[in-house]
């Protein structure tokens, strides 16, 4: 029954109308996509990490020490994510992956390229140059300040 049929029905009491109406609303309201979002965030975030683990093993096998292999892995993932963003692929993954495509280091690279492209028409300095840091800037600011504070605390306790 549609809502107007319920409201105009001569056979239903007021309470029955109310109940029928809320049943209708409950049937038709969009299902909260929380579980689906969690599932895809988990799968895509996990897969990106697995690719990272594969790169880490690959670079370690090439004789790089642990830190260098980690740095090379980050650089490779960042390159891939930047390229996929330019090709328009990464944002399509992001539509269903949500945080699964935002939280990994690839999401950091994606945020840079996506905003730089979006504002490209503003020019090479105020468009591309500035907007690369629209989201990356705050991340670097808070990351550097937090780690500096931690270094400072380490220095005080060492002294």
């Amino acid at each position, binding site marked *: 029954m549609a809502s107007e049929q319920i409201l105009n029905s001569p056979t239903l009491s007021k309470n029955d109308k109310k109940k029928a109406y809320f049943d209708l609303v409950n049937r038709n309201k969009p299902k909260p996509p929380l579980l689906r979002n*969690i599932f895809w*965030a988990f799968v895509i*975030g996990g897969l990106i*990490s*697995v690719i990272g683990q594969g790169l880490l093993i690959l670079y370690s096998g090439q004789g790089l020490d642990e830190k260098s292999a980690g740095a090379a892995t980050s650089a490779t993932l960042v390159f891939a994510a930047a390229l996929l963003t330019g090709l328009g692929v990464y944002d399509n993954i992001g539509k269903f992956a949500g945080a699964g495509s935002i939280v990994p280091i690839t999401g950091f690279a994606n945020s840079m390229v996506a905003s730089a492209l979006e504002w490209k028409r503003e020019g090479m300095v105020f468009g591309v140059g500035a907007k690369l840091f629209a989201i990356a800037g705050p991340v670097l600011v808070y*990351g550097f300040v*937090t780690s500096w504070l931690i270094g400072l605390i380490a220095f005080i306790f060492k002294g």
Partner: protein
Amino acid sequence: MDFLKAFLVGGAICVIGQLLMDLTSYKITPAHILVSFVSAGAVLSGLGLYKPLVDFAGAGATVPLPGFGHALAQGAIEGVEEKGLLGAFAGGVEATAVGVAAAIIFGYLVAVIFNPKGE
């Protein structure tokens, strides 16, 4: 086994981000998630709580953004051990230099070469 652990931990960290996005105020944007995850990773790392996760899950802990905060914090702590107070300034930047430079360089090149999709 390394891959399974990386998948489970990397996926779980992303799920935390998804829950923050879906269950909190609409004012919490992806930028807020990235900023807080990097800072949280650095703080956990400073408290010695993130390293065990990295030892367990490898890339599952280093690829998500808290791993970036962990690299920053460990760099700052190691910098202090080697160079004193100057190390607190240099250590974090040095430890993450390759990743940050790669993001700027590749990000810039892609933004110059490609044009926005779906105008």
